[in-house]
């Protein structure tokens, strides 16, 4: 039976709600932001739910204080606000403090990339991968569907470091229909090939998957990796997976060339002396105020389905020269 796609947040929060019955050490904080499942958490666990109001700095500080008192905290808000409005609170009271004391605070940011399509650049989020991976003890988790999002719950309970989960605000198609991915390596290999490998995260995995099908019909077989742990993936396994490719393509719904997935892969292949050329597909240029569908907006900034196909085709031609 086909799996009905869910919002990532609802699949993830469902696990929190279920666990809260058995585990009195879970606390849920939010900055005046909801979801249908959150309504159940609020109703069933009023003592371990708190809405701090539209006050992200306090969201982080209160969550840090709760963690110091032994709680596993899930802090929930819109992605650009829970990362950028309170970045220094995150740095000082989560990243720095967790070096000395256990701080299990899990930041759930909803609205990765362009997923708040018509809300404009304040609510869209193209900088979070760069910012959050700059904090060395943060785990940065970026699922492509609700199955993967839900799977991260065990990581959040069992791994005591602070974490950032970047969730899409839209309901995305299910990628992992047969079984949830093994998340221990931090990535999942969907396709293998010889020459070019697409490495995508979050929503862009869907674009990459479609592109790989079209390219295959044109006779160009590409590898495809879903990189969902952007900070603590298995270095040895990713090296083994990427080492033989001649070309690697990064695909992210974030600014190109500003420290996101593309920079991470550049650093990775340079450090490990992988002799691949790179193509980086990410948001080109500056902030945009135009309205459009997500696909239209993506095409404008160079990460839409057509733009990706054209870029990969040209990349392939340049490799075979």
């Amino acid at each position, binding site marked *: 039976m086909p799996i009905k796609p869910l919002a990532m947040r609802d699949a993830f929060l469902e696990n929190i709600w279920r666990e809260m019955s058995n585990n009195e050490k879970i*606390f849920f904080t939010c900055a005046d932001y909801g979801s249908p499942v959150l309504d159940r958490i609020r109703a069933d666990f009023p003592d371990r739910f708190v809405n701090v*109001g539209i006050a992200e*700095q306090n969201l*982080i*500080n209160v969550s840090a*204080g*709760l963690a110091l*008192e032994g*709680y596993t905290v899930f802090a929930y808000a819109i992605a650009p606000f829970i990362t950028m409005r309170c970045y220094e609170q995150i740095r000082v009271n989560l990243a720095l403090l967790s070096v000395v004391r256990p701080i299990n605070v899990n930041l759930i940011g909803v609205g990765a990339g362009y997923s708040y399509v018509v809300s404009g650049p304040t609510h869209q989020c193209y900088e979070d991968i760069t910012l959050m991976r700059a904090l060395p003890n943060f785990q940065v988790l970026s699922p492509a569907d609700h199955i993967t999002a839900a799977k991260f719950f065990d990581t959040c309970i069992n791994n005591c470091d602070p974490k950032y989960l970047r969730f899409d605000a839209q309901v995305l198609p299910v990628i992992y229909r047969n079984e949830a991915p093994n998340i221990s390596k931090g990535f999942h290999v969907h396709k293998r090939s010889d020459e070019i490998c697409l490495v995508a995260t979050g929503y862009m995995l869907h674009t990459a998957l479609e592109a790989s099908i079209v390219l295959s019909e044109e006779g160009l077989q590409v590898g495809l990796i879903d990189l969902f742990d952007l900070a603590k993936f298995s270095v040895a396994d990713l090296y083994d997976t990427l080492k033989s490719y001649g070309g690697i393509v990064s695909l992210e719904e974030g600014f190109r060339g500003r420290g996101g997935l593309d920079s991470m892969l550049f650093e990775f292949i340079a450090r490990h002396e992988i002799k691949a050329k790179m193509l980086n597909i990410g948001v080109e240029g500056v902030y945009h105020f135009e309205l459009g569908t997500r696909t239209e907006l993506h095409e404008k900034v160079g990460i839409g389905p057509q733009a990706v196909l054209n870029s990969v085709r040209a990349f392939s031609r340049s490799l075979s020269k």
Partner: protein
Amino acid sequence: MNLSDLRAKADWVWRETLAIHLRAPETRLASSLSSIEIFVALYFGGVLRFDPTNARDESRDRCIISKGHGSICMYPILADLGYFPMEELQHVCESGSFLGGIPDPVIPGYETVNGSLGHGLGVATGMALGLKRKENRRDVFVVVGDGELHEGANWEAIMFAAQHNLDNLHLVVDDNSISMLGYTNQIVSHGDLGARLSSFGWDCLEVQGHDVVALRVALLRQKNMLNGKPTALIAKTLKGRGVPGLENAPLSHVVNPKPDLLDSLLGGV
């Protein structure tokens, strides 16, 4: 500790703080001198419950020192209480020492990161909420400077603490009225800070912040109010207290007194 011993302890901490600054001029002396009696009353006046042999004891009162740079006077206090050997005071700011120019939570007795200002109250608020939910009856004290109350995150926490009736949360304002570049009322005035906090739903007291005996009484009163409101004690203090040229000087934060002056104040030691 009896009252004359409390006063003697505050004098001893004042001298030790000067001595540390003489050895480590990178430390912030003036802002540490305004908070000495506050910390002496908290730690020696029977206000805080703590166990130096078990710094993270669950039954301790939590003391968050938000004005980190201005708490060098805590080094002799914590050493005296047995959190770490007194010998460590000789090595402040030296390579390999855990006692830096700004205290960090690697120091036994420090709970949180305090180098960046305006963070302690919010974290303390979360701890106070956590203690309530755990039905742990211990209290959370948080010492801030009046200057750092310019940070907006404090006011988010102030509203939140009142909303959640956190009467186990006790703010102590070291109100020396000076931040780095001058008098706070000429930078951004807090107006009548007590009235302002009261209007946010807090119970407020005021005290002369260098009278260690009055501080002890006020802090105990603050701790025992338990009427569903967070409490604030505004301690009126003098930045750089007792050091000529430094005391209440608008640039005392960045001006270091001459070593000869400190030597003479310490009696030629």
